[in-house]
């Protein structure tokens, strides 16, 4: 994989920030967009734009084809059985909330259990917390090892026949651990529960096969994988989605509307009330084409190499704490520099043109677990190079000197 050549396909990366060439290392927050995606959205608005599923006119057909074509691409990308199992949403947050709000109250009651972990992003924590509060269920946490990984024995001990839902991220947005979701799914199923996977940090970076994982629901965001913001999807097993009630009512999602009751369209449209995010879906389809053109195995391999190179180089900086496991599978590293607050680290790095994230990363419980109020995070993508890591290391050394 030629990252330098790929970088040239991302117009935004070709600029200087504060007098230095931009090094963008905030990919876990959002990725940049290649020209192919930007052009696809432009092409949609210049050639196809119309509302979907209702226009009899030509543009209506073009827009519908583009939108439903994108759904087919998502189904293929996740290796879903059928495109009707792909619900377009605003992103991971909306997808997870859809499951918690619709599937949740129908299957969880007093005395039941919902199992999550302390490493969850707020978007895969609060919906379950709220569901537990509303239904009188118990929220349980799978314990974590000191480096943040999860042992299957602890999963076995936490999940019981009372567990109705297990919700977990595939990849942590802070620790960079890859959770054994396939094994956890099997344990959940053996106990009569279902598993919901937050795929926000996994989908952009590795090959995903929802059938192989045997997961019941899988949520992800497009904007972290080269697509525009405002589009994501929920995959669900057909029989589960069919049994769920919509949570948003309005245009597009109905079969027949009477004065006192109504019926819904079939999957996936019953969950897509209102005019959908058509241009976003088109952009997501183009992003999938772009990523498949590179190959997700190649993306994963590139990031694994980059992450381990970064771990090695960062470990050489005195006074730098690295959070998470030593050996890395994905390109995401969280750290703190001794006696320098991560906001100050991020500001100094920015003055060298290097973009990293600082804060709690929407993981306040995990920050408490790490005994850190905030951390800095560098996260990589297919266009990052070893040179970018070298720039980061140099920037951190400068930061230390500045605050020393």
């Amino acid at each position, binding site marked *: 994989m030629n990252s330098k050549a790929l970088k040239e396909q991302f117009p935004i990366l070709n600029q200087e920030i*504060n*007098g230095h060439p931009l090094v963008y290392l905030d990919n876990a927050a959002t990725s940049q967009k290649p020209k192919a995606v930007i052009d696809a959205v432009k092409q949609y608005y210049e050639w196809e734009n119309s509302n979907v599923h209702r226009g009899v006119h030509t543009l209506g057909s073009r827009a519908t084809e583009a939108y439903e074509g994108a759904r087919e691409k998502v189904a293929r990308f996740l290796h879903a059985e059928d495109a009707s199992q792909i619900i377009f949403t605003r992103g991971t947050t909306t997808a997870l909330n859809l499951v918690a709000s619709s599937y949740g109250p129908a299957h969880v009651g007093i005395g039941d259990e919902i199992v999550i972990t302390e490493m969850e992003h707020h978007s895969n924590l609060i919906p379950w917390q709220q569901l537990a509060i509303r239904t009188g269920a118990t929220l349980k946490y799978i314990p974590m090892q000191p480096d943040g990984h999860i042992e299957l024995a602890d999963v076995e001990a936490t999940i019981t026949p009372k567990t109705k839902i297990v919700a977990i991220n595939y990849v942590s947005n802070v620790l960079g651990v890859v959770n054994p979701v396939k094994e956890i799914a099997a344990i959940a199923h053996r106990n009569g529960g279902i598993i919901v996977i937050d795929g926000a940090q996994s989908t952009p970076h590795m090959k995903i096969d929802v059938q192989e994982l045997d997961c019941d629901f899988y949520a992800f965001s497009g904007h972290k994988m080269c697509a525009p913001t405002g589009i994501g999807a929920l995959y669900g097993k057909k029989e589960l989605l069919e049994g769920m009630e919509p949570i948003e009512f309005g245009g597009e999602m109905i079969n027949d509307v009477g004065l006192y009751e109504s019926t819904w369209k079939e999957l996936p449209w019953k969950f897509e009330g209102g005019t959908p995010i058509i241009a976003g879906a088109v952009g997501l389809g183009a992003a999938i084409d772009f990523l498949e053109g590179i190959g997700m195995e190649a993306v994963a391999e590139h990031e694994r190499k980059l992450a381990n190179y970064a771990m090695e180089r960062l470990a050489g900086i005195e006074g730098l704490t690295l959070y998470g496991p030593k050996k890395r599978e994905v390109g995401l590293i969280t750290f703190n520099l001794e006696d320098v*607050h*991560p*906001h*100050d680290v991020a*500001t*100094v790095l*920015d*003055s060298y043109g290097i973009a990293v994230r*600082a*804060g*709690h990363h929407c993981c*306040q419980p995990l*920050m408490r677990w790490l005994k850190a*109020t*905030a951390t800095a995070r560098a996260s990589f993508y297919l266009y990052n190079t070893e040179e970018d890591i070298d720039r980061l290391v140099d920037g951190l050394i400068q930061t230390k000197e*500045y*605050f020393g």
Partner: protein
Amino acid sequence: MQLDDLYRRVIMDHYKNPRNRGTFGDDAVTVNLNNPTCGDRISLQLIIEDGVVKDARYTGEGCSISMSSASMMTDAVKGKTVGEALDLADRFSKMMKGGDAEFDDYEDIEALSGVNKFPARIKCATLAWNALKKGIE
């Protein structure tokens, strides 16, 4: 971008040698504020008698900007009437929006004027002052 616009020597001095760090007993006015977007937090305590801020202390965690601002603020309001303290807070808010940066009554504060060039850091600087306003109210 000039880093030294943001991190002036005075600021680093307040960060590394904080004034008024600590706590009073339970009878002091206590305000706990945090910045939910970044996790900075401050616990400010004020002793107000006869409309005068007799003393101020704080504890908290945060970046150099938020903690140095708390150090300066607690120093600056000591001995001020409640009205004068609020006026100081108002002038600080104005400075963060690019307004006048003269603080004859406590010149160190002027060092924070550079923060307004760093939009992402303004909320760091204003945390302690928001706690002050809340405490007086």
